[in-house]
């Protein structure tokens, strides 16, 4: 059977975004993402512009999954951080429990600063996500509670 859905309520979403906004400011970053390890984008904050955040989330998760596989082959549980340095833009990824904290930064920041600030918020983010994931799913609150066959069929017309 598929896993129980993750429900992210408005209050929690805005709390996450507030943490990401603070991180972006402290790290002088361009964009900060929170992504589920399965590739689902949870929250994003920053100068998104034309950035395809959905694709970036999926690729980052794939990246971490692939390098995680490599880590296990050499006897490590996983690589907790990954960094990719470009000519102008760089990406730093931290594994925070079941999430990935992704920071896109340019010459306004540095890898050292991004690493430091990412580490500083990791525990807070981890606790917030634990609360979200472990919250009891109130079925009456779900958008699916009253969904009908006609509702589902209408998607495919």
């Amino acid at each position, binding site marked *: 059977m598929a896993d129980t859905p993750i429900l*992210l309520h408005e209050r929690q979403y805005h709390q996450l975004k507030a943490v990401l906004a603070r991180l972006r400011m402290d790290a002088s970053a361009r964009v900060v993402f929170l992504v589920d390890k399965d590739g689902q984008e949870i929250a994003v904050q920053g100068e998104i512009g034309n950035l395809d955040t959905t694709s970036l989330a999926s690729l980052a998760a794939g990246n971490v999954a692939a390098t995680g596989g490599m880590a296990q082959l050499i006897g490590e549980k996983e690589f907790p951080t990954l960094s990719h340095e470009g000519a102008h833009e760089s990406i730093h990824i931290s594994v925070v429990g079941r999430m990935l904290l992704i920071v896109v930064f340019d010459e306004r920041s540095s890898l050292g600063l991004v690493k430091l600030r990412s580490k500083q918020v990791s525990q807070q983010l981890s606790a917030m996500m634990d609360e979200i994931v472990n919250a009891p799913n109130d079925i009456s609150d779900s958008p699916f509670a009253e969904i009908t066959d006609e509702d589902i069929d209408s998607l495919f017309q």
Partner: protein
Amino acid sequence: MTFINYASREINCKIVYYGPGLCGKTTNLQHIFEATAPQARGKLISLATETDRTLFFDFMPLELGTVRGFKTRFHLYTVPGQVFYDASRKLILKGVDGVVFVADSQEERMDANIESLHNLEENLKAQGYDLMKLPYVLQLNKRDLPNIIPAIDIAAELRRKEEPVVEAVASTGAGVFDTLKAVAKQVLTELRKG
């Protein structure tokens, strides 16, 4: 794993297309990409070799519409089909909400279909999933080729439960959307059951 964001009013689900090498998984996604209005889909990301064989995965987000005020988005993935990419296939199945098995209808590929299906069951089990309980559709692709096995015979061999069986020619698009609709409906129905 389905993700419901009440703030942005979005439901996100993951569907994985599985099957042996060159069965038509990527072709399915390519057709969906080309036939869908740009505002209803994202980019098609294909991590492939120089000879266009899927190396890691293909990915495409698709917006099906709104239900009860929530946008329903499906993240479509394909796995690499070649046998030696098993480590990658395991990773891509993580968080799956529904599976499409694309079978190659050609006679000479029947063994590959069986091996791939067995591989799917094993890899799902390794991730804690049970194919018997997961939304699942069996697509019989390449129905236009001359050397194919009758659909009833392939289904008899490959069907695992009472899953929908859809005949397809992914290269022309025939059956592609029927397959997608069948699996998406199952995923949403399953979510309704809670």
